[in-house]
């Protein structure tokens, strides 16, 4: 539903903009295309790579890897899997619920979800292009460490 809203919004703004100033609107579209085309090669590469990784790391494989391994080892494995893959939330949460049912701990699942959302190794090349190497690596490293803090707190709260 949100997707249609986004298209609708873009179309409405385009029409308003076009009514106000044709030249500016043309320039906006040119800019939009330029910034899209600029990242297209990296983008396609990453998406194709993501397709392969997600095929290898199916929900079942992830569930097996995480399984019931508790403690630090479980958290380390969860953080590594979470950092490589970029799974959208609507797939990630059902996996997480499944893991919980299979006996994985809350802390492991929290680390998995947080790294999944905040750390992206596969998308790093794209991030480099926008933010440069240093800042991208810093952001991912901090997010990675932060995921463990979240997990520890969740482990305590949900004991």
């Amino acid at each position, binding site marked *: 539903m949100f997707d249609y809203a986004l298209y609708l919004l873009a179309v409405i703004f385009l029409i308003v*903009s076009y009514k106000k100033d044709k030249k*500016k609107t043309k320039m906006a579209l040119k*800019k939009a295309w330029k910034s899209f085309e600029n990242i297209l090669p990296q983008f396609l590469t990453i998406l194709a790579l993501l397709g*392969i990784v997600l095929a290898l790391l199916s929900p079942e494989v992830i569930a097996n890897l995480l399984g019931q391994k508790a403690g630090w080892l479980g958290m380390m494995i969860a953080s590594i899997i979470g950092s490589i893959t970029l799974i959208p939330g609507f797939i990630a949460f059902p996996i997480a619920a499944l893991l919980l049912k299979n006996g994985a701990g809350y802390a492991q699942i929290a680390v998995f979800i947080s790294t999944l959302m905040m750390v992206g190794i596969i998308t790093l090349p*794209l991030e480099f292009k926008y933010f440069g190497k240093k800042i991208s690596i810093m952001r991912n490293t901090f997010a990675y460490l932060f995921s463990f803090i979240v997990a520890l707190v969740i482990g305590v*709260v949900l004991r």
Partner: protein
Amino acid sequence: MKKIFKRYLWFILILGLNIILLMINRKIGLKSISNFGSIIFEMLKILPPIFVLLGLMDVWVPKETMEKIMGEKSGLLGILIAFFLGSFAAGPLYAAFPIAVVLMKKGAKFSNILIFIGAWSTTKVPMFLFETASMGWRFSVTRFIMSIFGVITIGYLIELFTSEKEKKGLYNKARLM
């Protein structure tokens, strides 16, 4: 032609890898191709309107306005707007990067841009509702509150470790993108 080939070299290599995968293990190879298709489809649902909106924002929103609400002196308002922008958006993290660049162009404060990226990655409201449904409210609320602090802390930490010169370089690069 040669230039295009060079730009897309990695993409072609990954496609080649996929074909090799298909020969080794048909099932995984096919799955990977169908994954790629559905990811592209997902992207087509959000990226084109985002880029169009960005282009419009670039030509219509004056730099002064953006500086006022998200710039160096925007204070709490800037942080709140950064959170709001990131939390109510949809799409994977990499869709947030081009938006961040336009925010840079328009003079938003660096830590606010980082907060926007952080909010986009982890405090999304639609995702929060989904998380509550599948993990229970104690899990999702704890993670949400922690993430708000985490996102702000990470934003300020990165700004702290980034020199003025590096920031300037980044903002200059943004202007060219």
